[in-house]
């Protein structure tokens, strides 16, 4: 019951945030300009009438078409959403799983190898990994591969999304940074659990060290690690924009960037429109994914709560 209430709470907040977001996207984007000598002075004047008109127009269209709108490619948003969602989810979910797997493995490795040499390969490499932003990793790998290809390395198809194997590079780029962050959290949590009494008891009883590590310590560190689940998902999603853009993988991220029309030049007095239906559609899609992640987080949190288990038994 408590769980259901919490899930409903997240849903309610989600609805609030989604409506705020839609309101921001629907802001009027007309600009004005007048000439002062040789310069055009451009400015932006917000008017409530225009804003109201924008909002009613959009919602009338939604009601009439029974769809979120038509994008500039003359497609209903839903069609595009399902196409790009399929593309992005096949890199997002594997990247999340891979980063959790690699991260926990690396964290345990760091925890177990605390000797002088072990520290360099363990914790030292974790710092290094944490300070490599995804874009630098992409540039580095591309440079190294292009040099290698010039010297006889087989040609790899790194860019685009035409072939099924194109997903491997984005998954790799996307999962590296979160993996190292998870590794740090894991080794930190393990070290905090390390000195607890129940570990000493287990050691005194003669439980093998491997069992203590995987069954006792890691099991108890789980709730602590779960606290970092949402930040990791957020990092993954913001990495998605960069990775998709740089590896020319046309998923949600690069489509949304495309729809937002980031301007590099302006004609004086022209409106600065964005592809409103597409921006609303793709933002809502990203928010739905985050809501699902939030729900998963809450459900796991509920299942892993030791107090609940105690009351059951």
């Amino acid at each position, binding site marked *: 019951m408590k769980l259901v209430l919490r899930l409903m709470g997240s849903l309610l*907040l989600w609805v609030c*945030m989604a409506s*705020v*977001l839609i309101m*921001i*996207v629907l*802001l009027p*984007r*007309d*600009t004005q300009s007048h000439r002062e000598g040789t*310069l*055009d002075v*451009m*400015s*932006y004047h*917000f008017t409530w009438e225009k804003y109201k008109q924008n909002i009613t127009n959009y919602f009338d269209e939604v009601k009439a078409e029974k769809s979120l709108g038509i994008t500039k490619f003359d497609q209903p948003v839903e069609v595009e959403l399902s196409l790009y969602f399929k593309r992005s989810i096949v890199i997002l979910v594997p990247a999340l799983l891979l980063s959790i797997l690699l991260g926990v493995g690396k964290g345990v490795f760091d925890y177990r190898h605390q000797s002088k040499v072990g*520290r360099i390969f363990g*914790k*030292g490499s974790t*710092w*290094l990994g*944490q*300070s*490599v*932003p995804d*874009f*630098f990793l992409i*540039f*580095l790998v*591309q*440079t190294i591969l*292009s040099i290698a290809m010039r010297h006889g390395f087989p040609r790899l198809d790194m860019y685009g999304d035409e072939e099924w194997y194109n997903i491997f590079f984005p998954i790799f780029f996307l999962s590296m940074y979160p993996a190292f962050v998870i590794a740090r959290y894991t080794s930190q949590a393990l070290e905090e659990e390390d000195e607890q009494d129940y570990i000493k008891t287990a050691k005194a009883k003669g439980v093998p060290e491997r069992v203590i590590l995987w069954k006792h310590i890691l099991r108890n560190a789980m709730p602590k690690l779960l606290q970092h689940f*949402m*930040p990791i998902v*957020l*990092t993954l*999603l*913001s990495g998605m*924009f*960069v990775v998709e*853009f*740089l590896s*020319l993988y046309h998923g949600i991220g690069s489509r949304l*960037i495309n729809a*937002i*029309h*980031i*301007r*590099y*030049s*302006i*004609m*004086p007095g022209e409106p*600065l429109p*964005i592809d409103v239906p597409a921006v609303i559609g793709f*933002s809502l899609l*990203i*928010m739905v994914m*985050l809501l699902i992640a*939030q729900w998963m987080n809450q459900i796991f949190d509920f299942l892993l709560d030791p107090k609940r288990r105690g009351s059951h038994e």
Partner: protein
Amino acid sequence: MRKIPSLWIGIIGCTMFAIFFFFGPYLPKVDKNVTPHSYVVGPESNLDFILPPYVPNKDFILGSDKKGRDIYSALIMGTRGTLSTVFSISVITFLIAIPLGAAAAHLSFFRYILQGWNYLFSRLPVFFYVIIISTIPFFIFSPHRAVWMISFLIIFELGKVGEVVYKSVKLIQNTTYYEAGILAGSKPIGLWKRYYWPNCYPQWVAYFVQHIGSMLFLLGQLGIFGIFISQSLSQQGSPAYSIDNTALVWPMFLFDVLIDFDAFPWVPLFGSMFITLSMFVFVSLGEGILEYHLRKHRGLIVQRKPFLFRWRKQEKSIYKEDKHNEAG
């Protein structure tokens, strides 16, 4: 201190960046104005003009960009702009977040504010918020765009940092020695001075340093899409006005990367390498500070007696006792 390599790496790296920050213009081979070169005369000086960008060579150690600006000079001269932007974001965020987080641990009113703030701004990627907001025409034309962008970043980060502060204060409130402090009649100022601050500040300092690193990451990501903190409009030839990045910052070399990368990979590579390097320095400094305090906490680092005489009442009395004991 000797045994914590991460602290050393952090300190040495920070010193390096501090030198770039303060003495950048006076370093050897640095072109103070980062002048664009539209051509360079060839080695034979028989009037063969070489157009930019230049491959890394003797004159341009790290090469040059499309406008012929020396990347080495631009990166070193850009240290000031980049780090001061990032620093101001982090400092202001922490200055607001620490009182907010500490207050939230005491008063439920602030607790609700912090929670609501988190619900609003920490549930979506900051990057996503920034790209949506930075394309609103008002912020494109505003002459105070830098101020607006920095304040938005502060607003988006505040909830996250406040939550960390709140949690660390709450952790201390659950300990028994804190209860003992309350029983002994400590006033809020005393609690702050003797209970929260000594235990929390290593964590906060470490988090602050890492926060600077993550802000650099974010600015780099935004730079790839051509969104900069400070922009201006300028007209060159055509009736359209181009939106240019005005500040000399590291992420500016990441812009246009899809076009640049195949032809002259050194431009984005060295630009992002500087970001990576500084993030590494900040991350290891943060880790080092935490490690140092952990060891100090466990008693592995012994504080030596002060070499010079210090005006401290307590220590003075201890010395007197020592002398007294020795004499006795």
